[in-house]
């Protein structure tokens, strides 16, 4: 299953709720303001790195770039472009957007 999160983890609880409910082996894609969580130095970095042991963590490159964060991506996070986003949706049987 593919989980999509689009809100900043320093403002909303959706990333935390997602990580609590994502089962082992599932994928989490961070888009829009959620990409900050995939970067070094932030409060969510430790959570993301811990989660990366059991989950595949992706972040949308165009959203990272639009936020000046392209060069700060955490190790263990896979950066994808929109084509990669489309492929992730295609590869997983279902997806859930954590609105």
């Amino acid at each position, binding site marked *: 299953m593919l989980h999509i999160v689009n809100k900043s983890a320093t403002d909303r609880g*959706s990333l935390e709720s997602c990580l609590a*409910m994502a*089962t082992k082996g599932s994928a989490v894609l961070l888009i829009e303001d959620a990409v900050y969580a995939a970067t070094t130095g932030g409060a969510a970095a430790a959570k993301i790195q811990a989660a990366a042991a059991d989950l595949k963590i992706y972040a949308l490159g165009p959203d990272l770039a639009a936020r000046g964060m392209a060069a700060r991506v955490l190790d263990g996070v896979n950066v994808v472009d929109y084509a990669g986003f489309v492929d992730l949706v295609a590869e997983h049987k279902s997806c*859930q957007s954590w609105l």
Partner: protein
Amino acid sequence: MSDMDEMEDGSGIVKKFMFLNRKAPHGTVYALEGLEVVLITAAFDQDVSMVFTDDGVYQLLKGIDTKGIEVKDFSKTYRALDGYDIEKLYVDQSSIDARGLTEDDLIVDVTVLSVSEMANLMAEQDVVISF
């Protein structure tokens, strides 16, 4: 344009639809407009589950009185879900615990699940829509 016409197109396919409610009522319209989708989905004879987690559990509280804010009280709709054959209502244990609530505080009978049970339920769905 009528939903009734569309329902006649029914292909006989039954999918598992989960509606995930994470937002409090009234502050935003998502809870109310989300209910409208749930009712239509049930009318298409699909396998519908409604899940209430995070602030979404607040939607089910007893004793709601919206007169003072001059909006519709749609909380009665949750009690009518039964009549639409929507019987799978799930509430996240940790979400009610964190808000100091118990099942007795809720307007309808629900099944309370742990996070891991909820996770398994979500993983087996065909379609998940979040409001």
